[in-house]
């Protein structure tokens, strides 16, 4: 059932991939609603289709069947370019690896989305700065990625993902590369920032501990989506 404060509506979505000369079904009739201001965890074994679902939601991939709506926008009816533009404006990403452009400084990396959207104004710069501050890496503003630790890199990625005020954040194993303590800290900060700003997020993760920090937990098994109760 769709309610007014549903940010993301995934409806009967299916996706298969061609592998050699065969078609492998990855997702079958997935249905998922994500509310405003909510963090959802997505778990499952390797190859279960978590990343695929993330790709579909972000518009990186096109689905075979069904529809996805983010806010008022029906993603599926958009062309590739339109999806890219939508993504640019409304979504933020954090990955497990390769989050940062190696030859840009931390500051430049964080400002990338602003530059892309042509909204590099004083207010936004202010926001960028305060994000870095909140994440505790402001003093590393002009360092380069290779000079940062894993945790610091992830925090920069988070700042970058939020700087342009997107409605939805997508994180794929954001803490997968970090040790336990750092992972928790980063996740906590992530959660705080998202909820404080009234955003929503989908977090793909293996870790039960990380998943427990989310509002709802879903898992994909046998090409289908199941909600888990905490």
């Amino acid at each position, binding site marked *: 059932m769709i309610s007014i404060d549903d940010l993301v509506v995934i409806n009967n979505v299916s996706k298969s991939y061609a592998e050699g000369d065969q078609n492998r079904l990855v997702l079958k009739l997935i249905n998922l609603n994500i509310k405003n201001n909510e963090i959802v965890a997505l778990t499952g074994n390797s190859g279960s289709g978590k990343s695929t679902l993330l790709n579909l939601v972000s518009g990186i991939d096109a689905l075979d069947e069904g529809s996805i709506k983010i806010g008022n926008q029906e993603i599926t009816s958009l062309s590739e370019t339109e999806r890219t533009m939508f993504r640019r404006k409304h979504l933020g990403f954090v990955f497990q690896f*390769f989050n940062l452009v190696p030859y840009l400084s931390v500051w430049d990396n964080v400002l990338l989305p602003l530059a892309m959207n042509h909204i590099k104004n004083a207010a936004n710069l202010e926001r960028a700065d305060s994000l870095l501050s909140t994440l505790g890496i402001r003093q590393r503003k002009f360092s380069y990625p290779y000079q940062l630790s894993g945790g610091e890199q992830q925090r920069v990625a988070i700042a970058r993902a939020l700087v342009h005020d997107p409605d939805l954040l997508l994180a794929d194993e954001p803490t997968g590369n970090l040790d336990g303590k750092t992972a928790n800290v980063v996740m906590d900060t992530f959660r705080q920032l998202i909820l404080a700003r009234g955003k929503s997020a989908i977090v793909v993760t293996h870790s039960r501990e990380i998943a427990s920090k989310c509002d709802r937990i879903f898992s994909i098994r046998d090409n289908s989506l199941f909600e888990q109760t905490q």
Partner: protein
Amino acid sequence: MNSLLGRLCFKSLRYQPKLLILLMTSIAIGVSLIVGMDIAIQSSNLAFERTTSSLTGKATHQIIGSGQGVSDQVYFEIRKITQNIAPVMKEDVYVVGFGKIPFKLLGVDPFAEAPFRDYFDSQYAKESISIEALLTRKNAVVLSNTLANRFGVRQGSSLSVVVGGRPFQLFVASTIEPRDKINDRFLQDVIVADISVAKELSNRFDTLDQIDVLVDRDDQETLDKIQNVLPKGVQVVLSANRTRTIREMTKAFETNLFALSLLALLVGLFLVWSAMSFSVIRRKSEFSLLRCMGLTSKQIFLMIAFQALLVGLGGALVGVLFGAFMGKFLVLSVSQTMSDLFFVTHVRQASWTFATVLKGITFGVLGSLLAMLLPALEVARIRPREGLSLKTIEVTQYGRIISKCLLVSVFVLLLSAGLLIGQPKSLMASLVAALGVILAFSAIIPLAAWIVVRMLSCIKKLTVLEFAAWRLLHALPRTAIPMAALMVSLATVIGITGMVESFRETVVSWLDQRLVGDVYITVPNQGPSRAPAVLDEKVIAFLKSSSEVSRLEYLRSISVETNLGPSQLVAFENNSFKNPKAFLQSIVPPKEVWKKVLGGDIMISEPLAFRWGIKKAGEAIDLLTPKGWRSFKIAAIYYDYASSQGVIGMSLSNYQELFSDMRVNAVAAILKNSTRSSDISTNSLERLKSIQVLDIKPNRDIRSEVMEIFSRTFSITQSLKWLAVFVAFVGIMSSLLSQTIENIREYGLLRAIGFRRGEISLQIFCESLLMSLIAWVVSVPLGVMLTYIMVYIINYRAFGWTLQMHLDKTLFLHTLLLTILAATLSSIYPSWKTLQLRPMEMLKLDQ
């Protein structure tokens, strides 16, 4: 958005300085060659044009004779009709100690010069030439200060020279300082003397080389009056026409040089493509990230394109600067060749034009954009998130690559063939076709790789090799390009060496046929571009009276006017055309040709027939003789390599009768005892030294001289060849290095599971060896094809020479050795790199 892309572009380039340097250097090398070559050619041409036009001055017409100049009387007669005429004598002067390229002695009448050439004018030089100085002293000449400094003389000094084989002491009556660069250019090659001095030096007392005329274009009346007093054998021609003919001669040579430099650029571009390809893989994650964040494919493509533009521009600029530098050195070499083959030019300075710079930059930038095109497209196709997880394994559809390339290859090959057939005379078309063939063979590389790999897999024991082969195949998009680059260089080596060898062999066998004498006597430093000097009568008398001589055969060479333009005519006595293979075409069986020639017909050499579009013997041409225009039938077209412009052959007796000229330029002496040819040569030289400075050579020395000229001509080509090899070798190494870095994790894994260091190095070496061998295998047929094209098509269309193809099989062995050497050397550094790292380090991700 564009500024963002721009900034990303800049920063990424700065982040990979080694790549940037490699890219820019590759482009710079190719561009520098194009620019350097262009400068060398343009300088020579410009120098020649300026000198010619300064020599021609403002003359609208010239009165010339055929072969013998114009009688003084004609000048006196015309002087009654108009005073706007000037007598001119031109002679080659060799300045002792200043090399084999002669300077021009210009003999003029200062009183008649004013309307034609300015240098007697005070506007021309800072001081006017003293007419008294020029007229009153024996052998008095005037030089520019530049030339005087070069010779180390001043006003009042004497200058040792040789003119027509005779030594003289010139008296430097005065030196002048030209007012500007253009006039200075002219005076760098030219020594000015009074016409009486010129006549005395050249031993031509009653004739002038030409009479310059200045006539209003509308003044037909004066031209008619002049025409009426001209005797038979003398005609009036427009100055403009003569200069143009000379320029056309060198076009073919220039085109060839340009093509070679382009080839070097091509190899460099392969390198660029390869380097870019590798860099693209390394940046996959970065591009994926940007795509995720919302950059469109088009924007990513633009980013790479912009990078290509920057690299191209940077490389081109460096290339232009370096090329200017190279141009200076190339100028000497090119002008030497031009002097040997076409016209004498003394250019010492390289002259730049804006067009040259523009040419270099355009090629550099365009080349760079072209080379980066495919990698850029590939990058644009990267799906977002593709490079962001470790799970993605790129499965190379090498099957598809092979079949696509094969298709391209066949298509290009057909196009090239079509071009060759469709444009049978065009040199440019044949060069483009050659390029097409090269590209077609490059596209075969994937197929060749696959075949080699298949063959290796049949040999069971070679696991290391097999492993390397498999990896090669799967990395085909990356490895094919450096292989192609090496293949092209190897094929170029084969092609060029083959062509030079073919040339050499053809000329040697031709010389064998044609050189009948034991000893040859001529005036030294002659060449196709020089006006041959006449042998002194006393020399002939000496030879006739010599007891060692069994028989003498004479040769006369002069420039004549024909209805198809000016040409060199050679009149000889011997029938050295006994070999039926000497003729391309004849109206009677080869054995009878000489009879026809004795009877009054003429022969023309192959390059001349080509130039004039004469395809069959039996056609007739008109020659201007002192008795007027006469028509001559062409009895045969014969092979001749002495001149790139071609000559008309006539029997000496007929020539002497028609032109009333008993002088000769060369004598072949058949000795009673031919083993004594060396001694006799040396002795005669000594004895005749006081009469005339001569070249007296035994037969085999002639051969080596001709060969020397040929090797000089091809020296530039040879250097380019080696440069191309060097560039390709660098390409192989860099690609190997990149590959190794790519596969570093894999090697780490292998090490972790137990492979020894040596085995890893062996792996790398095997890959390198395989790449090189595949390149070699494909280079062989391409090399043969290129030789064929160069020998039978390009050379023919450029000069009109038919050569016999001669390809030494040891050449293939040499290139194989070269290949193995390249493989070994290029694997050293990458191996060394892997040897440094420990397994765990190798397994860690490099960011």
